[in-house]
Structures are given as C-alpha cells and as structure tokens.
C-alpha cells in the first residue's frame, strides 16, 4: 500500500495511470494548486536536467571527448589526402619493377656485347678465303681487323709477283 507521498511523487512524474490515477486525483484537496505544483516541478526538473547536463560537459571527460573527436577528424582528413596522391603503393611497386626490368635488360645486352669471343657484327668479316695453289703454291692468308678505323683486312703473302705493266688502268 503506497503512502500519499509516494503517490504524489509518482503523479508528479506522470507514473500513475488508470484507476489509481483517478482515485489519487479525486483525493486531492485542491486540484488546481496540485496541477500548478506539478507544472513547477516539471519546469524545475527540466531546468535541473539542462543545467546539470551542461555542467557535466564542462569536466575533463568533455575535453577528452572533444579531443578524441578532433583527432579522429584530422586522421580521416589525412587518410583522404593520402589516397588522392598519384604515387600509390601498387603504382610504386609497378614503377620499381619496370625500372628494374629495363635495367637488367640493358645490362644484359651491353654486357653481352662486351664478350670478346663474339665477333662484332658491325665489323666486316672474312668467312673463308683461298688462293690458287697452282699459281701461288706458297701463298698464305691472314685476316685481321683494324678496330680503330673499322677496316677488315685480308692479308695475303706469297702471291705471284707481276711486272709493273699490270698496274695499267
């Protein structure tokens, strides 16, 4: 069984309903004064709620909260800036791989060209040579290249010597 004070508090808070509400309001000696008091109590409650809430935001938790929010905002902004740059990680990886491949390709080509065993295709070559053994039985043949002037020479010795008349045009 609730006391009057309990019912009064519940009525002010709007917690009474149904038959209990009707009985309680009927038992009030001055209904208008009670209603006015209820309105005042509600106003006071609202005021206290507002003021106490504002007070709560002024403590260190409020600043901590604000700080966390600001940090989160700035981090998000930085992340956005990071994704807008052209040099993304995949692109950098691709650029690096391409550069490496080109470097290896050129290195292999240039180093292979330096191989002294491989005759340069940019110098002329004497593949084979022979002299008539009947006409010049003691003839010898040598081949060499003058790299300075890029001249390829077939050097013969012991060919048949001829008189000066053969120099005619």
């Amino acid at each position, binding site marked *: 069984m609730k006391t009057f004070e309990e019912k009064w508090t519940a009525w002010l808070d709007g917690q009474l309903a149904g038959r209990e509400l009707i009985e309680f309001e009927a038992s009030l000696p001055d209904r208008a004064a009670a209603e006015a008091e209820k309105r005042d109590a509600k106003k006071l409650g609202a005021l206290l709620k507002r003021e106490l809430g504002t007070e709560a935001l002024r403590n260190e938790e409020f600043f901590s909260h604000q700080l966390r929010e600001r940090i989160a905002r700035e981090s998000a902004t930085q992340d956005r800036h990071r994704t807008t740059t052209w040099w993304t990680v995949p692109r950098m990886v691709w650029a690096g791989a391409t550069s490496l491949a080109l470097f290896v390709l050129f290195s292999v080509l240039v180093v292979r060209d330096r191989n002294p065993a491989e005759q340069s295709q940019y110098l002329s070559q004497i593949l084979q*040579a022979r002299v008539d053994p009947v006409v010049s039985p003691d003839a010898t043949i040598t081949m060499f290249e003058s790299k300075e002037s890029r001249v390829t*020479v077939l050097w*013969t010795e012991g060919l048949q010597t001829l008189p000066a008349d053969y120099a*005619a045009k």
Partner: protein
Amino acid sequence: MRYRVALFTAVIALVMVATPSLRAAEKVWSGLVMAENAEKPHAAPARLGRIEKTLIELFGYNQFEVIGESNKTLKTGDEDWLASSKYFSLHVDAKGVTTGGYELNLKLFKDKQLLLETETKLSKQSPIVIKGPQIGGGQLLLVLIVDGDEWNSTQESQARHPHSDYESNQLMNAWRHLTRFVRNAWP
C-alpha cells in the same frame, strides 16, 4: 591511362619496325687500287680518303690510285658485278642481306685466271681491304665500301670525337639490340 601508355608503346614499336624498310637502297663501291711509293704523292681518291691513313699504316705506301672500280646499287642483295682494270677484274657476287651488311663472294681474276677467292660479310660500317699481288714496285689492293649513311656518319663522328668511340658504340649497340628485340617480338 594504361591505354595511352599501350598506344604510345605500340606507335614507338611500329616506327622502330618500319624504319629499316624505309631505308634507301645502298651502294657498294668496289675498287682495284694500286698502292705505290711516290716522291710527290698525289691525294688519294675521295672514296679512299677516310681510310687513307689506315692504308698508309698497314701497307707502307704513300700513294693510292684507282685502276678499276664499280659503284653498284644494291636493291635485293642478290646482284653481281665486276670492277675491272686492263688486266685484273674483281667479280663480286652478293649472296643476300645480313644484319648490318651483305654476304659477298669475291673473286680476283688476272685475265681469266682466278688468283683469289673469298667469302665475306661486308658491314655497312666497315670496309674490306684485300692485299693482292705485288705489281712492280707497288701493291694491288682490293677495297669494298658500303657507300651509306652509317659508314659516313660513323666516320664523321669518329673524326669529331676520336675518344668517344667506345662509349657511343655501347649505346648504339644497346639501341640496336633493343630495336632488334622489339622487331623480333613483333608478330
């Protein structure tokens, strides 16, 4: 962006592949040259001007005179021709085009007698000199030069930058390898 890069690469590759086919026909100069020592040597013929110093150093003569010559334009690489003097003739038979030059069969005749025969690969950048028989106090030389831009530009470059030859060769070789690689990779 990727499509643009692919298009650019394709255009470059196409240019590299197409460029050799646009090259003009080249001439091969073949000459019978008499090398002699003279008290007052006259200037070497223009054809030999660029290798005159090498000829002097190699053979020890100071005067060079062309006694027979031929200037053949090669179109298919299968041509044959003759450079003749009164007694000698040099028969040149082109066997085809190779990378950077021509395959040639050379025969030196004295009248109708074969003195010397050789198979060569004549590069566009490198002349061939063959020491022939001794004639009187001089020497018969056979000279073959591809009269093209590559030989001329090589010689001009060498004259301008005598010490940069090796470096430029490396770069040119790398470039040629790259172009050949792209050309071979082209379907």
